[in-house]
């Protein structure tokens, strides 16, 4: 029988109340959203908060997807099902969100799991983090007194299950810049439906006038965090899209990732898959780019 260690439970009545509770508890508390990552971590005693603060009552404050200028803003309590089914997301970022959300866990988990929970879990094999890294999203962290800071994903994800969110801070929103001529794709190889990735690759491109103006490439499950394949991004921007170029980027992803051998496969196999999936994702992203 798996059960969490003893802990206290309270509900938040607002974001500011949740942060005030975090502050009052002096770092011994965790924010509890969907619970499908934190509760398993608590059962395994990998997370041992003395107190959990349930933010599920904050739907009206934190569950939203909206466009503001050249940004899409997604509230931290936006559920996976909301992102999967969002017309706005599939219009502004065709394919990439829907493809990742469709293979992220299973529909029952997607009913409750959230954007904020996915990012704060900082699991390098998680699909949505790959999408946010490829799209170069930023996390809005709010702390005591309403102080906010905005951090990019490299700064946000420090390692497996480690983020730069401070004990009295809370992730409240993810901001993602929009691009004209956007195309994206998410590719995943998994052992069975709904499992964590053996390897996944997310690709985001903007193509205007026959040239790539923006490129984001992320690989999941092949390093301590979701990896941003910077060398491939640099190689893409300014170039005309071509299969040769995407194949080179796949080689870069295979070379630059750092997978471990484990129950999901040996490291050299994962490295190979990372290359293939990166090429495939870039190729599909280019093919679907809205011209």
């Amino acid at each position: 029988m798996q059960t969490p260690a003893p802990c206290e439970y309270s509900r938040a009545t607002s974001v500011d109340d949740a942060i005030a509770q975090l502050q009052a508890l002096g770092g011994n508390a965790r924010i509890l959203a969907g619970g499908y990552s934190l509760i398993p971590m608590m059962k395994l005693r990998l997370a041992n908060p003395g107190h959990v603060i349930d933010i599920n009552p904050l739907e009206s404050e934190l569950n939203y997807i909206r466009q503001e200028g050249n940004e899409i803003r997604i509230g931290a309590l936006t559920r996976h099902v909301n992102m999967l089914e969002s017309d706005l997301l599939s219009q502004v970022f065709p394919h990439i969100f829907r493809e990742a959300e469709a293979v992220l866990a299973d529909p029952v988990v997607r009913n409750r799991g959230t954007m904020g929970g996915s990012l704060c879990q900082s699991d390098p094999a998680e699909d949505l983090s790959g999408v946010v890294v490829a799209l170069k999203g930023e996390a809005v962290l709010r702390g005591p007194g309403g102080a906010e800071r905005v951090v990019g994903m490299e700064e946000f994800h420090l390692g497996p299950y480690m983020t730069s969110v401070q004990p009295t801070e809370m992730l409240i929103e993810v901001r993602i810049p929009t691009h004209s001529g956007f195309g994206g794709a998410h590719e995943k190889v998994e052992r069975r439906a709904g499992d964590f990735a053996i390897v996944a690759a997310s690709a985001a491109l903007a193509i205007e006038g026959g040239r790539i103006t923006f490129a984001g490439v992320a690989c999941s499950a092949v390093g301590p965090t979701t990896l941003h394949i910077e060398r491939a991004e640099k190689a893409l921007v300014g170039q005309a899209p071509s299969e040769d170029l995407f194949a080179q980027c796949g080689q870069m992803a295979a070379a630059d990732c750092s997978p471990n051998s484990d129950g999901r496969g040996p490291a050299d196999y994962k490295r190979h898959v990372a290359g293939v999936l990166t090429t495939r994702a870039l190729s599909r992203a280019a093919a679907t780019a809205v011209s």
Partner: protein
Amino acid sequence: MIVNISINGKVQSHDVEPRLLLVHYIREYAELHGTHWGCDTSNCGICIVLMDDPNTPEPPYPVKSCTMLAAMAEGYEITTVEGMAHPDGTLDPIQMGFHEMHALQCGFCTPGMMSTGRWLIERHPNPTQMTDHEIRDGISGNLCRCTGYDNIVKAIRWAASYIEEHPESARTART
């Protein structure tokens, strides 16, 4: 802490540890053993129950009760397999479908499977037109080790057709 949860229309009130999981609240405190307890790792979907969340306009949706604290369901309405049938004993269409199509063998996954199936039908804009892929994807969070899933897919489809032909049958104890 005192946790009050309405289960199948009856408000339960029990003094429990905050860390108590919803599945154990249902089985050990409410003494409703129809909700089974399986892998304990949110993979198998055996423990799925339907939850009416007052924070959202969504109809009741399935949750894995081994991965939810009982305290998180305070004030929510939970429907377990015991609450599916009409008070007069008439089975819910999803239960009839599982019976008609022989969609269970050992029965361990059945309460969770029926809860998810019921939700799939309620949520789909045109349930009788659900493809096999949609149904199989819909129940991908529920494991069955006996049937090979074929008859479960048929049972969900049978229930969808039955509800279309008998719209009044969709009114269950929870609506």
